[in-house]
């Protein structure tokens, strides 16, 4: 059964890739490629769910195709199965959505063959990352995932901006891989690369080596997850990719960084000292707050969503950091609380961020622009997209009773429990983390009022927005599926959370923590006496909202409604130019956090030559350069450029000089190996 599902996953993706290369154009070709991807994703989801429900790991039989480094070894344990399921949850709707979305690439813009093939291979590589059972397989699939997604990012390669985004992505991702290779080399030592050997070997490492491995993995996986300041590629690459690929990259791929971190820090190393948890917590808090603050200043709808991915990775890491911290203190059930919060937010973020990216793609498809200042009034022109986007926006803003609220509630509870950890550091760090998380969710709500309000409400601000049309059925189905998941995962948390706590059993000595379900509906968190009952709450809310019109009817209230122009303070006509813009909406927050943003201002006023009181034109320009670009990456790029210039002298073009280099390098290697042997 599991072997069949596994083979089906592999075959469907491979056939999809093959089909895309052979055909993949036209209505039929696109449908076939997309359908095969969806089948592969469904099989992967079912496989993941089977492993989670039965709690039994699945070892795939793979013929010894590659004898290098122990060959391919594939095994799916519950932790991997969870992430495989998350891939499926987003990949199924995204593949269906892609069938319709890809129509814009039928013309010469980008190659549909490459896109379809890379999309299927990307999904395959991601799935196999969760299955990898030795270092060789893991790194191979990790690299495969990065390379295929690179090709997906540069799909619209006719734009210079896209190529630049791709360069950033490939550079940062490879720096990350370098860290990972170093970490895995240290972990492997003389043992074989099999994960089971790594667990044994990790316990023999010295504390210093363990710390180093942890730091390297945090950097390596963090660069993929998009922690600040390693996130620079994220707001560049995600918007450049086709929207359904952005949904997968933001919703799923960056989560595999979380998977890797959990795998190494918790599974292999079996947890560590308290400062590991504190470090992850701090990194998470900083990423969350800065991510949402920069999202607020974005007017490019997809870049805004990309910055929110940084924010949500931060929230996930806050949960995981709290979990690691508790783990180091030996309070295992509290550790489960934090980790479950992080894992549940992983699933939730995948669903609502996937949904929001598909929604943004739908808007892009209809208006041809990502600039929010040119949108508006889409609510009436694209009612379905608007509804789905609204659900996603409410979910990411952590509004009850949707799913985002539940996971943030769990992380909150974990942090509140952290207040009981002895020590003055915890007394300062934990309250600050609570404050940061609250600030993040408040700012996220503000940001999504802006994103939804400016994009979909009021009057259209451009001709394109005015003539926008609703997207094709398949795109709506894709969004609808994810919207339904966002709604169900709210009250449905009751069913999901016990499963999540079971996933963690055995990792770093964690035991199963029963999540008590009092009266079958209420969620009681382990060792904490806080509880909520989301199904009841959702029902109460719906009842309250639904009964108001009925009661008003019974009270015979005046139910007449007249339509009229908006009141324009005496103006005869309101034009879109008088509407509040996205920039204006974010202005108060820009002022509040001016110290962080440090916007550049440029004001040019042309006055009449006769008198300075007659202004002829005013030009105003203001830009915000993120501080990590300014302080970190610009100097770094300069340094690299400088070094590269120096090294260029080596390249003389003379063949005998190159031969000398070869000989020198060989001798150096021989000496080095002798030295290491000793």
């Amino acid at each position, binding site marked *: 059964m599991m072997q069949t599902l596994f083979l089906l996953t592999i075959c469907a993706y491979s056939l999809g890739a093959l089909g895309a290369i052979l055909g993949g154009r036209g209505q039929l070709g696109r449908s076939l490629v997309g359908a095969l991807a969806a089948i592969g994703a469904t099989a992967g989801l079912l496989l993941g769910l089977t492993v989670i429900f039965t709690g039994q790991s699945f070892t795939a039989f793979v013929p010894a195709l590659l004898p290098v480094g122990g060959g391919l070894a594939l095994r799916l344990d519950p932790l991997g199965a969870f992430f495989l399921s998350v891939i499926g949850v987003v990949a199924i709707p995204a593949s269906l959505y892609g069938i319709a979305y890809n129509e814009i690439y039928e013309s010469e813009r980008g190659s549909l063959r490459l896109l379809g093939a890379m999309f299927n291979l990307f999904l395959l590589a991601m799935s196999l990352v969760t299955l990898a059972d030795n270092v060789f397989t893991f790194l191979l699939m990790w690299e495969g995932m990065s390379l295929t997604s690179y090709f997906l990012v540069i799909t619209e390669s006719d734009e210079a901006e896209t190529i630049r985004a791709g360069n950033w992505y490939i550079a940062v991702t490879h720096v990350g891989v370098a860290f990972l290779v170093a970490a895995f080399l240290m972990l492997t030592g003389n043992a074989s690369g099999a994960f089971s050997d790594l667990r044994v070997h990790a316990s023999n490492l010295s504390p210093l080596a363990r710390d180093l491995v942890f730091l390297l993995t945090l950097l390596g996986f963090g660069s993929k997850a998009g922690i600040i300041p390693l996130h620079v590629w994220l707001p560049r690459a995600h918007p450049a990719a086709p929207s359904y690929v952005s949904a997968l990259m933001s919703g799923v791929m960056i989560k595999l960084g979380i998977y890797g971190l959990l795998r190494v820090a918790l599974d292999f190393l079996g947890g560590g000292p308290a400062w590991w948890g504190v470090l992850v917590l701090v990194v998470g808090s900083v990423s969350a707050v800065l991510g949402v603050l920069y999202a607020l200043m974005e007017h490019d709808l997809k870049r805004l969503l990309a910055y929110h991915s940084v924010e949500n990775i931060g929230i996930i890491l806050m949960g995981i950091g709290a979990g690691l911290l508790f783990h180091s203190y030996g309070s295992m059930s509290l550790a489960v609380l934090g980790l479950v919060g992080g894992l549940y937010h992983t699933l939730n973020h995948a669903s609502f961020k996937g949904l929001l990216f598909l929604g943004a793609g739908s808007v892009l498809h209809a208006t041809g622009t990502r600039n929010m200042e040119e949108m508006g009034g889409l609510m009436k022109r694209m009612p379905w997209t608007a509804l789905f986007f609204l659900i996603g926006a409410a979910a990411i803003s952590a509004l009850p009773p949707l799913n985002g609220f539940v996971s943030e509630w769990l992380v909150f509870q974990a942090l509140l429990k952290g207040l009981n950890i002895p020590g003055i550091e915890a007394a300062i760090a934990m309250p600050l983390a609570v404050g940061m998380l609250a600030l993040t969710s408040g700012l996220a709500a503000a940001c999504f009022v802006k994103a939804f309000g400016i994009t979909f409400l*009021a009057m259209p601000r451009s001709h394109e927005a005015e003539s926008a049309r609703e997207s094709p059925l398949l795109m709506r189905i894709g969004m609808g599926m994810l919207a339904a998941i966002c709604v169900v995962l709210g009250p449905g948390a009751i069913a999901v959370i016990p499963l999540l706590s079971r996933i963690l059993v055995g990792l770093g000595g964690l035991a199963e923590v029963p999540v008590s379900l009092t009266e079958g509906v209420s969620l009681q968190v382990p060792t904490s006496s806080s509880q909520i009952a989301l199904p009841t709450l959702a029902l109460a809310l719906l009842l309250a909202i639904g009964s108001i019109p009925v009661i008003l009817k019974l009270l015979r209230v005046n139910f007449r409604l007249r339509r009229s122009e*908006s009141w324009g303070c005496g103006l005869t006509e309101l034009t879109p130019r008088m509407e509040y813009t996205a920039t204006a909406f974010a202005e108060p927050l820009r002022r*509040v956090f001016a110290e962080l943003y440090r916007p550049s201002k440029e004001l040019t006023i042309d006055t009449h030559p006769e008198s300075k009181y007659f202004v002829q034109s005013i030009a105003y320009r203001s830009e915000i350069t993120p501080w990590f670009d300014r302080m970190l990456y610009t100097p770094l790029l300069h340094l690299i450029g400088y070094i590269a210039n120096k090294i260029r002298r080596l390249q003389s073009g003379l063949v005998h000089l190159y031969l000398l280099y070869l000989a020198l390098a060989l001798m150096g290697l021989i000496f080095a190996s002798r030295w290491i042997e000793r």
Partner: protein
Amino acid sequence: MTNMMSYGLEIGQMLLALALAPGLVGLVRWLKARLQNRLGAPPWQPYLELRKWLAKDVVMSTNASWIFQATPYIVFGSTVTVTLLVPLIATPIAFDAVGDLLVVVYLLLLGTFFLALAGLDAGTAFGGMGASREMTIAAIAEPTIALSISGLAIGSGSTNLGQILTTTLTDPAAAISPSHFLAFAALFIVVLAETGRLPIDNPATHLELTMIHEAMILEYSGRYLALIEWASWTKFLLFLSLLANLFVPWGMATLVTLPTLALATAAWIGKLILLASAIALLETRVAKLRLFRVPELLSLSFVLALLAVTSSLVLK
């Protein structure tokens, strides 16, 4: 407590909250007028306003969408749900396990979220301005709320209101500590911000460039306006009750019998009147802050809350 009675109590406190909310706001207005040497409208004026609005037609902008129409119901519905979750006269209540303090805060944020969207929906500059400012203040106030909640939760180890109240009631010596007063001060400032009172927003203002809440709901009329105003008055009552009951829970009924409930209701109303008078006094004494001075006030409240939590951890 039998099931029937506890659910009866739930419905009872919901109806009581909804019924008293306009009166409470009217009382603040009347007190303010008297303190300012004005005659003022009688305290029951808000009831008359509600009746007037419910009888009028709704005028809706041609730009607006269904968000504009759904918002009043969502705002009122979420507020009504909160009245079920907050213990007003007795503790613990039947819905205590349904939602904790975080649920209360986020349900109210749900209302604010939709109000801000509705503010943008008509496409006027006033609506956008109000929405932008309201969300800014809501976002900056959020950390203080969360920290005050943590401060309150330390003692009982739970964010559920019933647990917090029971802990304070059974162990009053632990409750009266410096952190208790600091948390109260922090939350008091936030309540002023969340309910749109001076010095953050001026509830008496209309058609001024400084308005926040009023600007956001400027396009509303008729029954929609009635629902939104009623909900915001109820929110005011709920926040005052939270302040009163979380920090001074004494007087709340722990048994459900008619005499204790009557006494508890009287005590609750007494506490509300006291807080309302304090707010009326405050509002006659302070002027409205410039919008960009508001974050300073809110960061002050954040520092107070942080001190409350850390001091209670250190003193523990």
